[in-house]
């Protein structure tokens, strides 16, 4: 195992931790909008960290740049799809949960 492969491990573990947090949030939060908080934020950073870790593991090649490009794409796409689906919920008249 060389130094690049060792460097990738913390990134991958961090990505896994944020994936775990996002999933637990998706399961535990009380309503749809708060669940979107979990997936919209958690998955974006988790994917970013995981893909950076994988491209660091890959080293310097075209494939690593492609993986980073997927990361950039997800960075743009994930908040946008979160916004689209939450906007659909708002237009359909879904009321947000409030604390009693």
């Amino acid at each position, binding site marked *: 195992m060389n130094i690049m492969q060792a460097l990738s491990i913390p990134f991958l573990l961090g990505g896994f931790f944020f994936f775990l947090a996002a999933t637990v949030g998706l399961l535990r939060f009380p309503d749809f909008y708060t669940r979107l908080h979990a997936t919209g934020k958690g998955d974006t950073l988790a994917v970013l960290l995981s893909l950076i870790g994988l491209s660091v593991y890959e080293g310097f090649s075209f494939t690593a740049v*492609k993986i980073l490009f997927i990361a950039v794409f997800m960075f743009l796409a994930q908040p946008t799809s979160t916004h689209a689906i*939450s906007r659909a919920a708002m237009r359909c008249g879904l009321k947000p949960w409030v604390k009693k």
Partner: protein
Amino acid sequence: MEVTVLIQTADKAFEILEKARNEARELLYSSAKIASETKSLEAKRAEQAFLSGAQHTKLAIRNYTLTFFMLFAFWVLLSGRLDLFHLTLGVLSCLLISYLSYDLLFANVRIGDIRIMFKRFFAAAPWFLSQIFTANLHVAYLALSPKMPIDPSILRFNTKLESDISWVALANSITLTPGTITIDIRDGEFFVHAIDKKVASDLDTGEMEDKIAHVFMEADHIYIQDILDVSRIFGELK
């Protein structure tokens, strides 16, 4: 006796300081106003020139070539094969796509100087990344804590940004920063779902909006950074 003299001099000193501060503030505001006025004038002139035909074709050609080169760079990244046959295929397909959608990638007329935007974007990136990291730690804390201390509310605010790219940047960074997601936009009014009362007050300061307006060079607004730039020039002139 000596004490009164001292107090009087102190008072006078404060007065002078106050006066100087007011003057400086006026100067800064007027300079910033002049700067923004010249900017809007320039934008208007560019728009007029854009309406006349020659400028239009020039802009179309510029869009075409810029799109072509961006797409070709993307093709080389994807393909990874640098022999003549694949490069020829790449040139042909980039020509086709830039013919099909040359007006999509650079549809925004108001966009500023790209080099400056890139520089400012990379200067602002660490702040955004740190915000995203804090946001995720916050969500992880909320999701994993047993009591789950949330108190959701919806707040709305009007934005002063104008171009669509900066709207995208604002909406996406609201979604990615702690405790808030953009859920709807109606006629320039942002509806933001905040998971906590505390983060709702954080958003009202408009710090993020200023940063995005600065990065994307929104024309008609006075930003703090520009005032600081102008003030340095005025100091040198004096």
